[in-house]
């Protein structure tokens, strides 16, 4: 049985190998680009939702912020609350009704759908990430005269990004898998290749077997790389004291005179430790 399966996979690969690889490439490009755009959307929404709005701000600003918050809320609820496969169909076949022109470019529609979807999830992650930053960080920035945007850009968002890195990774892996629903509008991703090939040669199981292995490899590789990235973002685990800079005084750091040696120094004649 295994021999049969292996030979079937072998023949499939020989005939359609490049098609499968092409599908993998499309899947990866769509997932990566959409996750990046989704993150940008998420950060924008998260920032807009956390603009401070005290009772003594002027009334126009308060009303405007209120409207922005309601719009973001609606966006998040709609795109989080409906299936992505349906959103793809909805947008792909719906846009021609409103804009006259048909949305011919499947890539554009696919990227829009997946990005907007990721953005909806990321908006909440970013909001949570910003809220979890110690209020002292905001106060520290305010106290040296930074305005809200400077505080966000230089102090809060870098820390938020680091904190929500696991969620971004999560979303990326979900996207690698869930872009497979884009076959519904004719996007030729990895899964669409399976549909096409197995339909042509009727080898459903061998093809599905390959797809399973393929997707698993992609996601395992992705989580490995994301872990690496996370570690890199955490910064160096140690630091070095600086005393070569001319402006840096080395007060308090005392170099023991090397030629005199100490009783604990093996090179010294005063060395009192064990001699071998």
């Amino acid at each position, binding site marked *: 049985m295994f021999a049969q399966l292996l030979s079937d996979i072998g023949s499939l690969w020989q005939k359609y190998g490049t098609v499968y690889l092409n599908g993998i490439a499309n899947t990866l490009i769509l997932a990566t680009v959409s996750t990046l755009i989704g993150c940008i959307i998420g950060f924008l929404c998260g920032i807009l939702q956390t603009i401070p709005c005290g009772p003594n701000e002027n009334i126009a600003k308060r009303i405007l912020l209120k409207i922005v918050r309601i719009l973001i809320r609606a966006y998040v609820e709609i795109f989080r609350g409906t299936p992505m496969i349906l959103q793809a169909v909805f947008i792909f076949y719906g846009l021609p009704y409103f804009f006259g022109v048909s949305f011919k470019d499947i890539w554009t529609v696919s990227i829009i759908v997946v990005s907007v979807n990721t953005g909806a999830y990321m908006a909440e992650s970013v909001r949570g990430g910003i809220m979890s930053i110690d209020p002292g960080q905001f106060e520290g920035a305010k106290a040296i005269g930074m305005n809200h945007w400077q505080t966000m850009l230089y*102090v809060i968002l870098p820390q938020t990004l680091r904190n929500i890195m696991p969620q971004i990774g999560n979303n990326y892996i979900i996207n690698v898998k869930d872009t497979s629903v884009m076959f519904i509008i004719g996007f030729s991703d990895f899964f669409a290749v399976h549909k096409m090939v197995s339909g042509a040669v009727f080898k459903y199981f061998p093809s599905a077997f390959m797809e399973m292995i393929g997707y698993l490899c992609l996601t395992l590789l992705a989580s490995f790389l994301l872990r690496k990235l996370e570690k890199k973002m955490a910064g160096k685990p140690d630091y070095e004291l600086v005393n070569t800079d001319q402006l840096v005084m080395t007060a308090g750091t005392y170099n023991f005179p090397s030629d005199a040696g100490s009783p604990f120094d093996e090179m010294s004649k005063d060395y009192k430790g064990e001699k071998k």
Partner: protein
Amino acid sequence: MSDHILEIRHLSKAFGSHAVLKDIDFTVDQGDVTSIIGASGSGKSTLLRCINLLETLTTGEILFHGQDVTKGKINQSAYRAKVGMVFQSFNLFNNMTVLENCMIGQQKVLKIPKEDSRNKALYYLNKVGMAPYINARPDQISGGQKQRVAIARALSMEPEVLLFDEPTSALDPEMVGEVLDVMKSLAKDKMTMLVVTHEMSFARDVSNHVVYMADGVIEEAGDPSVIFTNPQSLRTREFLKRILAV
């Protein structure tokens, strides 16, 4: 009037119906080292936060060189850059190194070029004895070191007044000394400071002005030698008896 750096007039602050500060009046002059002492909950920290506009006051005004900073006409960021603040919990930026912490405000708020801001940051880090640690991140150094960096960060902005909100309260006893030493050297350099503190030795020996607060009002204010040896108010006397006995 204009020779006062800071003048607080009839300042009141209420959280809901709870009045925390009631009709506070006092002035800070060039070179003053003012200690604000008092029991927990007496409004000391709130007063300091009001002065730095981290809290909005209910009524009253804060004059900085004779100009009211609470009325929105003056640029709040510019005012805050001139009035530095050191917090109980340090509030160093966790995503930056010690050096970057001391440079970011200069570069972004004061628009000082990178090289100059670096030199100034190093100068003040040197002053607090933290220059060798410029590449460390805040989570890699001790509490006392963090507070010294926080002081250097505030000094790098070259403020006219420095506010200290219980700078040693979050520190282990053995680290209190290093921070107080830095503050003492600043006092010697005639830095204008306003210090909320529980360190009575600092209030008595270093500051030249002591304000005792109780229940949101200034109970007694004056020269430390008078307040510590011959307090006029009964509450001041009792507070000092309690705290100095420990």
